[in-house]
């Protein structure tokens, strides 16, 4: 039997609801309908009242989660798409993100963000906002790439006493399958070697891990062994594991699906050169999406989003530098 990435998210929520009476889920169309992506399918029946539909009010959804957390609950908020969290931006960064610092009272809320591009989704149903939220103090930003991480990191994220931005990738929802959810369970904040290698390090997260691993496979025939580090969370960011990898390979390529200014790739590169300048045999490189909104048409979209081919060709340059 195989499990998909979205199954894992549903299963994690099922387990959380079962194990912890403080957990409830709140979002648009998530109760009887089971959510736009069916991440909560059937859960409202199993846990009456604990999987509830909200009005189209993202700002109030997050504000309500903050209030509920103060009173001892552990709300999971489902954004219908990450892109719509822009409407709740203030509540997320200024209300939830600052709460612990201002008051000393922890703020255990989890916001699930269906993220990233899929063909034909267009500018407002495709965004990757991890870099926007990671800029703000007080938020934990998770970016699971595997079925096992989708499962464990949601459970571990909800267990954290801090606001968690859980970026789940829509492209992986049904495309990514695994035998079971029981993969290696690393703690939050620890990166993972997704593919070992010795000639170059690719640092990626979420869907880009898979594009990077495929690009690495492409290069195997040519004798290159490329290591792929899956960050798993962009904040905290496990610089240590990245540096260890770069120490082995001497070369760095950071890959992210978000827009090209700033973001996780810039943060990774800056940290590596600050602490591991001497480890590098070549200038570090970055790949991001293009500097336009995410286009709707699949032909434009595939050229906007970093993919296997671009990563492979960039690696070729990096490897022979």
């Amino acid at each position, binding site marked *: 039997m195989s499990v998909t990435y979205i199954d894992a998210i549903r299963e994690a929520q099922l387990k959380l609801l079962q194990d912890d009476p403080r957990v409830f889920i709140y979002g648009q169309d998530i109760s009887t309908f089971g959510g736009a992506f069916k991440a909560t399918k059937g859960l409202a029946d199993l846990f009456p009242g604990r999987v509830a539909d909200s009005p*189209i009010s993202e700002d109030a959804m997050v504000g309500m989660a903050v209030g509920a957390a103060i009173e001892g609950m552990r709300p999971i908020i489902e954004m219908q798409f990450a892109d719509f969290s822009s*409407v709740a931006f203030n509540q997320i960064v200024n209300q939830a993100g600052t709460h612990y610092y201002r008051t000393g009272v922890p703020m255990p809320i989890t916001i699930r963000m269906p993220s990233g591009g899929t063909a034909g989704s*267009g*500018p407002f149903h495709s965004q990757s906002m991890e870099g926007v939220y990671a800029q703000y103090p007080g938020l934990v930003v998770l970016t699971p790439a595997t079925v096992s991480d989708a499962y464990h990191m949601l459970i571990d994220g909800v267990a954290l006493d801090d606001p968690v931005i859980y970026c789940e990738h829509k492209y992986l929802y049904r495309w990514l399958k695994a035998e079971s959810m029981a993969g290696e369970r690393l703690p939050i904040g620890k990166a993972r070697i997704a593919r070992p290698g010795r000639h170059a390090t690719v640092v990626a997260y979420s869907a880009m891990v898979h594009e990077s691993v495929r690009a690495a496979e492409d290069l195997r025939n040519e004798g290159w062994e490329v290591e792929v580090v899956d960050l798993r969370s962009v904040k905290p960011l496990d610089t240590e594991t990245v540096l260890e990898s770069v120490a082995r390979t001497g070369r760095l390529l950071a890959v992210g699906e978000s827009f090209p200014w700033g973001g996780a790739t810039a943060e990774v590169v800056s940290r590596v050169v600050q602490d591991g300048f001497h480890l590098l045999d070549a200038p570090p490189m970055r790949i991001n999406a293009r500097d336009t909104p995410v286009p*709707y*048409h699949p*032909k434009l979209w595939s050229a906007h989003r970093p993919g296997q081919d671009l990563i492979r060709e960039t690696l070729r340059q990096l490897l022979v530098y």
Partner: protein
Amino acid sequence: MQLATQPKPAGLAGNTEFLRKVYQAMLRARILENKMSSLYKAGKIVGGVYLGRGQEAVSAGLGASLVKGKDFFAPLIRDQAGRTAFGEPLLDCTRTYLGSVLGPTRGRDGNVHRGRPKEGMPTMISHLGVQLSVVAGMLFAKRLQGTLGDRVGATCLGDGATSTGSFHEGLNFAAVERLPFVLVVTNNQYAYSTPNTSQFACADLVEKARGYGVGGLSVDGTDFLATVSVVGEAVRRARAGEGPQLVVAHVLRLSGHGEHDDASYVPQEMRSSHCGRDCMDVARTQLLELGAVTADEIAGWEEQYAEEVQQAVAQAQQEPQPDPDTEDWMAVSTHFPAR
């Protein structure tokens, strides 16, 4: 201020030309959307397809009451009929759904996310409610320029979108500035799968009007004559300087949220209740009764529009799709030396 007034359709019954125009737009839109639905099911469209089935009367009634080249109209998800009545060419629709690079969005955005900002029709973004302030801003600009005249700006949204902060800020802004602004809320009982009961707590959304200090009109959106008349009255009032007007039309969404959705959450009783009536059927009956059209005429229109739609689809399908290599990938219009 009046709540829930329904001006008598009597006046309109005389205006056969106008009623025929509204019905034609409704019919064209229905036929066009049926085609889009078929194409979706045949896998010919990337992304979703969103229909205005059941909402044609209110949407076309609004579009037809506005004057292209003068008024502003910001349609939303379910406004194919309003777009058609306002004068959007069928090709704008087929090109956008089919990804032709010659469409108004050049493949950069899809389906209902299209418009012609320079022709009085701003392009929607997905985030609900945000276009109220945009339309109000267009009117504000015209007033500053001293060319407001008897122009009106109108926009639409659904019951669900009334829960957004943007709806509130936009409507309040229009009210404070007393702009000639018409907001049509089509309460189709659901926001995706979410029923009214989980969305708001007032008896009729038109009860919000008073709290904003704007005019309020409520109408049975399945009743073609009443709807066209009420929407027209709202536009007339705004045009006459009576300030913003909120119209609430009550219907049932006669499709899924998108064509991927079977809307099985809508109970059978609701489908067969009064609000589940199809405004197209009601319109046909009312117009025939009035003697404003004949059944033969309608049959002729149906044939003609099906042909037009077929052609618009065929043309869009033959046109080039966007090419990433010739795209300029520019999100700003300025060419800076640095990026």
